[in-house]
């Protein structure tokens, strides 16, 4: 079981890095966000320095990469559904969940690389974070990514159509992004949005991330976010594995 998962993870990673341009583009994007969005945000942040803005925005950027980077990884699965390779793996003696878990694990590896890059840039720009907080932020990001990747694989295997998949993702992306306070903290939002925000799981991840970057280790948002995303990650991963079973008896 573990051997097959490792096998598929390695295979997927090799596939991703066979043309290193694309993963590189994926990694540059969050850095661009930091470089171009943080100065914009500065004018809106109480206090008003770039470091303050970054302390606000870096955790948001990390959760954003975790969710939106991984949400798109299911597209690869649709291509494989179409070219028949998924069917071929389903007939092989491979432990079937490994086919999906390998992809999820690959997304996690890519995510860690991106996270480290973002942290390096943020630190170069003056953000400081304690060691414990750093580890917790990375773990929280991984849990968020795991949830999004599982969701994406499950969605791909259910929708089975690139067009439908991209429309579905687009539909959910904007509300999830705004209601999480990714770009503009939710405290600026009108009351009805404030009431609605806690329904959005990403809101809790961003809140917890901000608490960690602010060094508030005892903030109640942290255990809430961890609990929530562990449960969600387990649920979406199970769903994605079950969806695979549906395509192959």
């Amino acid at each position, binding site marked *: 079981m573990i051997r097959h998962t490792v096998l598929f993870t390695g*295979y997927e990673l090799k596939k991703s890095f066979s*043309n290193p341009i694309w993963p590189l583009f994926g990694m540059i994007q969050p850095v661009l966000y930091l470089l171009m969005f943080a100065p914009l945000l500065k004018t809106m942040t109480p206090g008003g320095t770039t470091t303050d803005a970054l302390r606000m925005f870096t955790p948001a950027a990390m959760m954003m990469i975790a969710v939106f980077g991984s949400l798109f990884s299911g597209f690869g699965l649709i291509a494989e559904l179409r*070219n*028949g390779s998924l069917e071929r793996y389903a007939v*092989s003696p491979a432990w079937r969940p490994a086919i999906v878990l390998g992809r999820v694990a690959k997304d996690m590896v890519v995510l860690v690389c991106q996270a480290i890059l973002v942290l390096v840039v943020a630190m170069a720009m003056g953000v400081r974070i304690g060691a414990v907080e750093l580890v917790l932020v990375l773990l929280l990001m991984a849990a968020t990514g795991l949830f999004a990747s599982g969701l994406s694989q499950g969605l791909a295997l259910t929708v089975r159509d690139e067009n439908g998949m991209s429309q579905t993702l687009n539909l959910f992306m904007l509300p999830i992004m705004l209601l999480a306070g990714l770009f503009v903290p939710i405290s600026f939002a009108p009351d009805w949005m404030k009431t609605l925000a806690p329904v959005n799981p990403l809101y809790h991840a961003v809140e917890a991330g901000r608490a960690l970057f602010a060094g508030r280790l005892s903030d109640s948002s942290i255990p809430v976010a961890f609990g929530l995303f562990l449960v969600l990650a387990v649920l979406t991963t199970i769903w994605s594995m079950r969806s695979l079973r549906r395509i192959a008896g």
Partner: protein
Amino acid sequence: MIIQADDLRKSFTTKSRKGTQTVEAVRGVGLEVEKGEIFGVLGPNGAGKTTTIRMLSTLIAPDAGTAVIAGHDLLKHPAAVRRNLGYVSQAGGVEDTTSARAQVVMAARIHDVADPKQAAAEVLERFDLTEMADRPGRTLSGGQKRRVAIAIGLVHSPPLLFLDEPTTGLDPQNRANLWERIRQLREAGTSVLLSTHYLDEADALCDRLMIVDHGEVVAEGTPGDLKRQVSGDVITLRADDLEKAAGTLKPLAREIRVDEDVLRVYVDDGEHTLPALLRALEGQGVGLSSIALDRSTLDDVFLAKTGRTLRDAGAES
């Protein structure tokens, strides 16, 4: 016996706005394939060939029926069945961005082949793919992709290989090339179950075959046996009055069929019947516009069993 299947059934339910529809894709198919044999499933599109192969390869569970494949029960021990299979689907399963070699090596690893790289190199060499083995899948031609697909299916040397429509979409040269490679599998002792809607393919490749239509087996045997059942030769003619021609020729033929604007006359010995047939038609004043003599083909078998030609049946679906 590498495959013994009895009374396999599968129906699919599709739900749409128009309501629920149930399609009986396979209605009681049984088949037996001997070790080392190339067994064909011939039939028009939509006859249930792919569904049958997907059931036998553990991809979908049959609604009813049993099968023992390579000594393992399909329903009770699907994992054991999978270890003994090579499976090449209609789509092929060659990935676009990865090299052929990486895909073959991966397949070997999944099957616990002792030396995956060596096994991959050997099977790629066997299919003349060494030169393009390191190019990404999308850059390969249709024929090369097919060969990669089969190489992936064979890297673990399975005793049984499933080929679903292996030559669909290939040009004649690539088809002939692939036929030759499939024949070589038989020499290597690999049993092959292949599906096809090409008559010439079934005729040229298969030791035995079954003809399926609407999810049922309509005939089974060696290509030679099946053709002998319909009789040896077929004379196809076009005339101004087909009814009259049919009436005139009845005593000379084993069977006569009017098929739109042509008359098919089945006879045992075409060369010797032809002069008598021409004399009889002339005597009755039937005007001929064309006449042809052919050995009967599997299409004639299909026609005799289903009342349609394979070409017509293909056009229906």
